[in-house]
């Protein structure tokens, strides 16, 4: 909890102990999600190029 408060304050978020509790709840789920993705053996997988259409539209392909 105190780490979240510290990191949040470093990021200039208006954070205190009471706020941090709500944030930790949400963050805990995100950490679970991140763990699941990390365990998914993505070794040979490149990130999706999300703005593919934009590259095409500017003839940079």
């Amino acid at each position, binding site marked *: 909890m105190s780490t979240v408060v510290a990191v949040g304050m470093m990021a200039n*978020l208006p954070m205190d102990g009471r706020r941090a509790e709500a944030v930790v709840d949400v963050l805990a789920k995100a950490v679970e999600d991140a763990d699941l993705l990390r365990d998914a053996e993505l070794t040979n997988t490149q990130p*999706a190029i*999300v703005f593919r259409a934009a590259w095409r539209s500017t003839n940079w392909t």
Partner: protein
Amino acid sequence: MEVDQLDIDRPHRLTVRDATQALRARQISAVELITDVLSRIQETEPAIHAYALVTADRALESARKADEMLRRGSDLPPLIGIPVGIKDVIETAAIPTECGSRVRTGFVPSVSAEVVVRLEAAGAIVIGKTVTHEFAFGVLSPPTRCPWDLTCIPGGSSGGSGAAVAADSCLFAVGTDTGCSVRNPASINGVVGLKPTFGRVSRFGVIPVSWSLDHVGPLTKTAGDAGLVLEAMASYDPRDASSLTEHAPRLSTEAGLRRKAPRVGIPTNYFFDGVAEDVKAAVRRAIAVLQSQGADVIEVTLTDMELALPAVAILSMVESSTFHSAQLRRTPTLYEPDSRARLEAGELITGTAYVDAQRARTRVKESLRKVFETNNLDVLATPTCPLTALPIGQPNIVCGDGSVVPIVNEYARLPCPFNLSGQPAISIPCGFDSQQHPVGLQIIGRPFDEAGIISLAQLYESATDWHTMKAPL
């Protein structure tokens, strides 16, 4: 062709297609249509609260102009005189756009979103702004209620749009979909919701949740209407970095299946796991109807779908936190507590987690591409949501395995893989559960093939009457 007198007497119940015909045949005027829809809004709003704002005077003024054009009768735009509800995260010039948030109280944009510009150029009349969950972050959409059961949420985040179409308080509405937010409220409220191919509809002027996942799409009473409206909405727009340069399909004239017996893939895994029995049964019956109409139904297995929800959660949290970063520091207390916690948490997710989510996206897209190619599929068919409308005030659900998950996760689980893949997907009504809550069938097509999913949906509608059922208001 004339529209039945019974429908003309209650014009708010008309589909876009029928209203367009009735207006052109001068069976009804645009002012009469708008006036009737405004009466319907007055009648239903105390119960369902689908609108954040109703623009009655402006709509009537536009209707008078539409009647002038109809009297002159030449070069009429395709949606002339048709009232539309616009989700309140989509900017409308000179009309407040508050995103369901105190952060934006009183904000009046000076220009409209491109999708609104296009709809108005096509003759549609903005009748109001529909309720959204704050900044489109959730599926509760307070204070809107589901017209089928006023004790339940309408889904979301385009909950106001779904409820308004279900209540006949507009002829169609526009929503946005980051993980489920057009298709979920369509399913929950028993209407049609279309998420087009990623980049098909410009998001210029739409407040983003996630640049890499957001889509804009119509909510309508029939699949045919979704095609008509999408044709007017779709365009290349250089101001949206993801906008497609491909020409928008002529859905009103070219809609059609690629072949007589379309190949429909039914997933054997993930998409029916943990789905309520009533929902599963309704969707299985819908698939049997498609089969009876000539579809070739094939069972398929998909890999990596379990990566979709975590990837969408991380991408959307990080990207929305990026968008709101400065505002969150300026006016933190104006955000609702759940939105604020989400935005703060999004800033603390690591960069490596974000990139892993984009890598997972590659895997989900690849899995879907392989299944379509290997099986030569035209579409996939699945339930839109594992559950129907849920009671107001219920934040979580208990899954079959005993785990407790937020409602938003469960509602987004089946639609969200197609936000990652960018494929077009439509939700159409396919029955009810034991509580008389609507169930949705999701049909997913190949990229750019909106015509295919709309045609299959129309084939289903031609054999059933779920899309004609009205909420008991």
